[in-house]
Structures are given as C-alpha cells and as structure tokens.
C-alpha cells in the first residue's frame, strides 16, 4: 500500500461517499489490514494439522494399559514386561531384600522415598518400576538371573554406572531420581494392570 497514493475523494463511481475528513482512507486501510490478517491466521491454522500428526496416534494411545500375570514369579525373581513400548521391571522381593530396603535412613537418600511409598499396601514384596534409568534412559541390569545387580543389590545401569537398591532407589552414580513407579493396580491377586 506504500506505493499507492490514497486520494481523499472516493474513486469508485457509485461508492458511498465518505466524508472528506479521511474516513474513507481509514476504512480502506482497515480492509487491507483485515485481509492480510486473515491470510496470516489462515496460514497459521493450516499448520495445526501438520503439527498435530506428530502426537501419538490413537492406536498407540490405546496401548496405554498392559495386564501382566505375576502368578509364576517366585520370590527373588523378576520379569520384564512391556508397557507403552518401555520395559517394566516386576520383582518379587525376598524378605531379606525388603528388610535391607527398610533399614536405610530415608532422609539420607538422594530422592527420599521409603519402600512402602513405592509399593501397594500389603503387597510390599511386589516392586514394580519402569526399567528405564533416570539418568539417560538406558535399561539397567539386575532383573534377569545372574545379571550384575550393583553394590546395593537392586539394579545397575551399565551405561554410566548408576546403582539402585532393592527398592529401586538411586544410591550411587549420576542418575538424579529413583526408578519411576508407574501407575498400576492389582486386578486380582495374580494379575497386575499397568497404566
């Protein structure tokens, strides 16, 4: 619009005559600005579906719960389940492991939580955590038979040497947090629903 001179008189024959004080000019500018803004808004809105498609698709979201049968896990053993394409460690703790976890002074921990905070009432032997190290996302060792459990008898992440105790709490190494406990519930004494 910079290249057009705006005459004070209306130029189109038959166009309603705006008063000579420049009302017409203002109305015309307004239309140009409105048209440009609409184009801008339109372009902005058109980007929305292009971005929306990055979000997890409906079939991925439908995978958000997993049911696991835990009836075959003997005390001292654990299994790796899969929830949302991530490993979940389900471990049946031995009484000695529970005792070791409860002996620790919670206040001295990097991420203070007791074993009871991390298990369901009456099910203190079932430790269910994500198998994802809170440092940079590697899968710690210690759930399978004969794997290195680290110096605290829980899990040990081989990537950068984070050691977790028998309650899955961070004790040593670079990880900032305890292994994450996902939302879960016992749908029956032998079936856990994660998510």
């Amino acid at each position: 619009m910079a290249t057009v001179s705006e005459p004070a008189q209306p130029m189109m024959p038959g166009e309603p005559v705006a008063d000579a004080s420049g009302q017409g000019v203002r109305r015309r500018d307004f239309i140009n600005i409105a048209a440009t803004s609409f184009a801008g808004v339109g372009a902005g809105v058109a980007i929305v579906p292009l971005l929306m498609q990055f979000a997890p698709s409906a079939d991925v979201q439908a995978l958000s719960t997993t049911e696991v049968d835990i009836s075959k896990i003997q005390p001292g053993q654990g299994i790796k389940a899969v929830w949302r394409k991530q490993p979940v460690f389900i471990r049946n703790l031995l009484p000695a492991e529970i005792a070791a976890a409860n002996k620790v002074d919670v206040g001295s921990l990097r991420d203070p939580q007791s074993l009871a905070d991390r298990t369901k009432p009456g099910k203190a032997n079932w430790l269910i955590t994500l198998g994802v190290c809170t440092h940079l996302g590697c899968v710690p060792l210690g759930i399978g038979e004969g794997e290195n459990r680290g110096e605290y008898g829980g899990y040990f992440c081989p990537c950068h040497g984070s050691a977790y105790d028998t309650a899955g709490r961070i004790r040593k190494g670079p990880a900032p947090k305890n292994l994450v406990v996902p939302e879960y519930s016992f749908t029956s004494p032998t079936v856990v629903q994660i998510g």
Partner: protein
Amino acid sequence: MSFAWAKPYEPTSPFMKWVDERLPVPRLVYGAIGGGYPVPRNLNYFWNFGVLAGLALMIQIITGIVLAMHYYSYAGGAFDSVERIMRDVPAGWVLRYVHQNGASFFFAIIYIHIFRGLFYGSYKAPREMVWMLGVTIYLLMMATAFMGYVLPWGQMSYWGAQVITGFFSAIPVVGEPLRIFLLGGYAPDQAALTRFFSLHYLLPFIIAAVTILKIWALHIPGSSNPTGVDVKDEKDTLPFHPFYTAKDGFGIGVALLIFSIFIFFLPYSLGHPDNYIEANPLVTPAHIVPEWYFWPFYAILRSFTVDFILPAKLWGVLAMFSAVLVLFFLTWLDRSPVRSSSYRPVYKIFFWVLVADIIVLGYVGQAHITPLNVALGQVASAYYFLHFLIILPLVSKFERPLPLPNSISESVLHGEKQESAPFGLATTGSTTAAPAAAE
C-alpha cells in the same frame, strides 16, 4: 530485470540492508514477486493460475512430507498404513484428503494454465523457453502423479502400475525386458513399490527446481498479457506488489474455497472405489480407468485398434506420448506473429474446437468400451493431431489477424488515458500515439 523502470530493491530496515549486502536473497525475492517486477496492467483472472500452480505444488510437497512420516512403502503394509493414517493418526485424514485431492487440484490448475497459454499464444517468442519448461513440469507432474497413485497399493494402484509399465512392452525387441527392468520383477511388487515411493518423493523437488528456472526465464521478457502486445512503457505495467499480490490473494481464496468443497464434502468423488480394495495380483477390476487428468491420453491410447505396419499397441503408445510431446514444438508449428487469439478470428474457432475435443476425449477415456465410444474416441483423437500438426501451421499461414491495439494502456483504458497515465506523464501522452518517448 525485465524493464528499465523496474524498481531496484531498497532495504527498508538496517537489518534487511545488512542481510542484503551479504546474501542478496531479499533483492531476489523483491525482483521476482515484489514491487521490483513490473507486470502488464491488463492481466485477466487467467493469469492467476501460475501462482495457484505454485501454491498447489507447495501444498503437495508439505502434506507429502508429513504423510511419508506415517506411510510404509511395504507391499504387505502400504494399504494398511494408509488406513492407519485415515483412522489413527491425529489429523491424518485431513492431510491425506488434501494430498489425494491436491493432485487433482494441481492438474486442474495446470490445465487451465496450459489452455491460457494456448489461447493467448504464451508459447511464442520471446517466451519459448518459459513454455517448454512448463511442458517439462507437466511431464514431471504426470510421472509423479502416476507413481503417487500406486503408493496406497489398492486395486487401481496395482493395475495402474501394471498397465502403465505395460506401455514399455510395446517397444519392439527391448520392450518386455525394459518393462521387467523398470518394475524390478515380472509384475508390480515390493521392488516397484519402493522405487516408486522413492521417486515420488524426489520428483516434486525437481519440479520445484524447474519452476524456479521457469520463473527466471519468465522474468527476462516479463509476463505476457491478454492483448499479446508488447509492453511499451511504464504506464503499461504495474508493480507486482501490491497490485498482483492482492489479485492473487483473492484468486487463492476462491481456489481454496473450491478445493475445500472437494476435501471436506466430496473427497471420494475424483477417486475410484476399487482403490479401497487392497491390491490383488490375481483379480483385475472390471473397469480400469486412470485418474481424470489422464483420461484424454488414455482415450488416445485406446483409439488405435488396427495393426498397420506397426502393431496397434505401439501406435497407441506412440500417439499418446506424441500428444504430450507435440506441445514442445508449438512455437515452430504456429508461425503467426500475433499472440492473442482475441485478434485471430480463425484460430480462435479452432481453439474452442480443441477444448471441446479434449473434453470429448476425457469422456471417452473413462467410458465403457462400446462401438460408439470407440468411434467417438477415434474421431476426437484424429482431430487432436489434426489440430496441432496440420490445422495450426496452415491457419497461421493464411489467417488475417484483426488490427492490434497500439499499446496495452490503449486497449485497457478506453479513453481514460488522460487521467490514467502515471502522474507526470499524463500531459505528454496524446490519445492516438502511444508515448514511446516516455522510454
């Protein structure tokens, strides 16, 4: 820069000045689509279609890139992945409908653009290169559209791939081995699907590159105009921005409105139901038809039914390719110095016959094969070649064009010249002689 009075880029802010001195992209853009490109002031709405074609290409590239994030080019899963896009991917359905109908949108625009060029003689000197680059883009579009249509791996995709690659088997001796080489197998399968996907992703970027060359070539002589008369001086033109950006803005609005009707309310109307059945190499659909933008060519292909020296199949394939390639030679076939059909009374009649002829060919291309349709297709195909190869050269030799206007301003302003001439020039111009002295 095309015209002496084209305004050079003057940065409006110190930042743009800083950028422009180091990387003159702002200057380039300003000269191409900004105030630095003087455009004849008498363009009609048919001149909107160049910008619309660019818009359609951008829409296809952007939605295509996004769809490729969800599509598998795996013969066992391609169809399924398309259904996943339609059902599970957030906003996937709209992206897919836009891309699917966008191909038709693109072709519709290109066809109007081509007919615009035919009517107003845009292929004539000095714009031959612009025209030929355009035909190149059209050929690339056809290849891209064909390969894209194969990707959903429905029945029409599969049998389309089978039939189109079958063209090559018409070539004597090397035909069949060439077909197998192109498919990477004896029938369309994984190898063909993967290479089609790869090329379907590549070709649009080549189209974009040729488009840039085309705009470059266009900006040497500048845009043509409905009178076909050369721009004589500055009052024949207006700067592209804001005059033609505003006009194109309106054109884009109308085009998108029409496009939206198809996307949201008629998304299946241009497709074929059989493509919602997964590819089955053992069953051919009862009635194979290409997408609408190939119907006229498909009609030409099917019109050759007699072996005469060469086998009928080879005649059909040769004719079909010739039907496109003839466009490359238009400049040399039509020697009339007058560009616009508005001043060519005889050619104008044949132009409209050609339009009707191509519509008839389109109808025949999708119709069931009956004796009447076949005969109609043969007559229409004959006229197509007659038009370009025989009528056009003869008409351009014998036709007597109407008198041309002296200048664009004279043709467009009808006696309003005095008040319409640019400020400061109005007093020098007279009503009869075009003020060439203004140069």
